[in-house]
């Protein structure tokens, strides 16, 4: 163990280090616990005073450049924005997940940067700007539509927190949030190409709303919200040609040529990422938010079971040829049976959780400025159906 020379209150940093081509090893360093010190200050202290071979990234020291992302006690954080005073016991510092480790805490983020290129996360005006053109002004409302998404600092914490990015080919949270940022920009005319790319197999559909990207984002960009809005826009974009035949195609000639602008990074992400660390089957046990997500997802089993039970009850109540009293008697016996009671007792908490989480996520879609009419129609239809069923039952 290497230690600092002063006798102040200290904190142990257990840093997972990795030489190029070698296996990761945890090395402990003891540093002074100063109230104003961030993890980045401690890393710099170790490099200056204890071990000059330690490698890490850092630049602005004020949460703007996004270069000092690391995992602290399992959570992706900016090293400059996380303070030693909050540490309890040894603080485990690791490189970000899902990226190849270059050395110690430095990871290669080429794959994530490639996603930005593929999604054309830059302004694509309808007509190219020429010298002497008047400025393209925006109203405050037009600016507000995308401003929060433009706050992304490309720190890649959301990529590290996103299990779907680690599990499979996925364009990733920040790139998709930035795509939505440009789609919402009134000066932009490139949304058709972006939606085409975002609607592909490795695009928005890979997102299962785990929500950890939003939790760890130091710039409060809310990538999960952006992706849900992009899903609605992509769904609208995908099915619009089916419901409006004969209209002009969505991606015109001037924009579709740009879809070839993906360059060499259009290869599968697993190939591009070289040696990203594999995720085992029990990855979801690592963090509370992942465990919560898996419990939420498991409610699907009870949803299916209860749907089948509903159909069974309806068949009992509608069986042809029998008088209504006999049908009612059979259905009542089925309802009060121990099996049905057990199903109800188990299904209730799970479906209540499903309802709670679903209705918490649904408003994210409604806040989209894009395709709002489609979203409202999509949600209004089931609501009206529910009201009709309840009204029918009460009448």
């Amino acid at each position: 163990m290497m230690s600092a020379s002063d006798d102040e209150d200290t904190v142990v940093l257990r840093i997972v280090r990795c030489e190029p081509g070698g296996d990761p090893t945890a090395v402990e360093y003891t540093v002074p616990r100063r109230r104003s010190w961030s993890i980045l200050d401690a890393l710099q202290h170790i490099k200056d005073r204890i071990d000059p071979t330690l490698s890490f990234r850092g630049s602005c020291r004020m949460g703007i450049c996004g270069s000092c992302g690391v995992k602290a006690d399992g959570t992706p954080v900016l090293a400059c924005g996380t303070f030693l005073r909050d540490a309890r016991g040894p603080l485990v510092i690791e490189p970000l997940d899902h990226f190849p480790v270059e050395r110690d805490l430095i990871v290669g983020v080429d794959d994530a940067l490639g996603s930005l290129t593929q999604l054309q996360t830059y302004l694509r005006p309808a007509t190219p700007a020429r010298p002497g053109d008047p400025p393209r002004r925006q109203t405050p409302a037009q600016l507000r539509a995308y401003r929060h998404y433009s706050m992304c600092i490309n720190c890649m914490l959301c990529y590290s927190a996103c299990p779907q990015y680690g599990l499979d080919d996925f364009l990733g949270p920040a790139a998709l949030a930035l795509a939505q940022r440009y789609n919402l920009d009134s000066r932009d005319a490139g949304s058709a190409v972006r939606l085409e790319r975002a609607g592909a197999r490795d695009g928005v559909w890979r997102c299962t709303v785990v929500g950890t990207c939003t939790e760890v984002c130091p710039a409060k960009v809310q990538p999960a919200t952006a992706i849900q809005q992009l899903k609605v826009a992509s769904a609208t974009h995908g099915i619009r040609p089916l419901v409006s035949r004969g209209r002009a195609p969505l991606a015109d000639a001037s924009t579709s040529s740009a879809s070839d602008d993906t360059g060499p990074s259009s290869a599968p992400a697993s190939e591009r990422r070289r040696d990203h660390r594999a995720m085992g089957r029990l990855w979801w046990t690592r963090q509370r938010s992942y465990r919560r997500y898996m419990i939420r997802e498991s409610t699907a089993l009870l949803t299916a079971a209860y749907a089948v039970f509903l159909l069974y009850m309806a068949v009992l109540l509608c069986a042809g040829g029998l008088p209504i009293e006999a049908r009612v008697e059979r259905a009542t016996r089925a309802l009060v049976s121990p099996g049905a009671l057990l199903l109800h007792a188990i299904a209730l908490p799970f479906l209540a959780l499903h309802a709670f989480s679903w209705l918490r996520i649904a408003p994210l879609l409604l806040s989209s400025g894009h395709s709002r009419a489609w979203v409202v129609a999509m949600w209004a239809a089931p609501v009206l159906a529910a009201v009709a069923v309840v009204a029918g039952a009460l009448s």
Partner: protein
Amino acid sequence: MRRQTSSRSHALSWLLFGAGGTLTALLFPALIIAGLVLALSDPSVAREGMHRAAVLLDARWARWGLVALVTLALWHAAHRIGLLLHDLRFPVARRILAPLLYVMAAAAAPIGLALLR
């Protein structure tokens, strides 16, 4: 062309998933509570409740509505079970089971309509 078709199928699948999710979130907890209350109450109350349901299901629109609810709920569940298998890293099971679940969910509509004719 293939990418467009894939994108459209993803979009359609997701819209059906969304509709199923909304319906189940709005209706299933209420239906389960109603079912529990009926099952745990006096038998005559349970019978009365079932009688009301039978009368309601005599209307064709109610039967169609119920079949739509069950189909969308199963589609929603199929979509999420497929994702669950993906998350748990069972690629082979997902490749075999997920399409089967979608087919079963889609088949619930004609089967339900035939059974509730």
